[in-house]
């Protein structure tokens, strides 16, 4: 299983959840699998997806699912500490871990030797799930779990051949905020 298959499997099991999606190929792959006003494509600010998701989960009641990556989580490990302490029940952090910086040429990250689920558990996350490369991702069960939830999905490196997102940043955020009814 590569990243895009994990994304597709999860998206097929979602209803009206809000998604904050990580920079680079993760957003492009999500956009090609399915586009929705419920999705915020983060086009810059690497490392910030989990933090944006935390703030959004605290500000309103709908469930928030963050698609993050191993390189991005390593850039903002402190964000996990904050998310655990603020503990919004409507937050699901999904880390799709291919053990590399996929969007820049698949240079290795340190998650081959550091287990991000163990990191999350050490911080204190009580509800956490791990899926290996060949596991079936049962996401409906995760959506019924009280947050904050940490989901660690191992995938093979590789980016799908998908185009860049042809929406302007303002179009992305305005559509998203109209969906949440905050503008």
């Amino acid at each position, binding site marked *: 299983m590569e990243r895009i298959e994990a994304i597709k499997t999860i998206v097929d099991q979602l209803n009206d959840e809000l998604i904050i999606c990580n920079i680079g190929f993760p957003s492009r792959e999500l956009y090609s699998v399915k586009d929705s006003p419920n999705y915020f494509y983060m086009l810059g*600010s690497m490392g*910030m997806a989990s*933090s944006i998701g935390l*703030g*959004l*989960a*605290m*500000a309103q009641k709908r469930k928030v699912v963050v698609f993050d990556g191993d390189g991005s989580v390593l850039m*903002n490990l402190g964000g996990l500490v*904050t998310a655990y302490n603020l503990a919004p029940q409507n937050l699901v952090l999904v880390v799709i871990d291919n053990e590399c910086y996929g969007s820049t040429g698949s240079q290795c990250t340190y998650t081959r030797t550091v287990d991000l689920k163990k990191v999350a558990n050490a911080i204190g996350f009580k509800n956490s799930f791990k899926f290996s490369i060949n596991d079936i991702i049962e996401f409906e069960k995760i959506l019924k779990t009280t947050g904050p939830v940490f989901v660690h999905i191992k995938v093979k490196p590789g980016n799908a051949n998908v185009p860049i997102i042809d929406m302007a940043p303002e179009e992305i955020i305005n559509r998203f905020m109209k969906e949440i009814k905050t503008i």
Partner: protein
Amino acid sequence: MESTQSVYNGLKDAGINFIVSIPCVNLGKLLEIIDLDNEIIHVPVTREEEGFGIAAGAYMGGMKPAILMQNSGLGNSVNVLASLYNLYKIPILMIMSHRGTKGEFMDAQVPMGNATPLILDALNITYFNPSKEDAQYIIKKSWDIAKSKGVPVGILLEITFW
């Protein structure tokens, strides 16, 4: 008016209801007051950049956000300000204790103190240097600018402010 109170009054006049923070010794009293205010969600964070991320999400969820930090935190936040706030036109009030300014007792604060206005200029961020007499008015006005233009606006509180 007392300096901390004038900043707090400005935040209240602006309707700020979501604050992320990293402490500075000069912001200590303000952080205590905010913690007692049930109308404001206060989120202490581990790094200023992360705070900007959380505040952006809160804005999307309908909140009016501010960050309280030392000016050193601006250096930790350059990319998020450019590639999240500038890119998507997200407003926020940046209340910064500006160390390394006139009266600084610690030499180590001076280089970042000098760089701070230059970094704000490079990011094209509007900022003000209020006194305690006009801080309340300027902070309220700054949020109006931030909201109408979809930009971060900086408030630099120099050492002499306190």
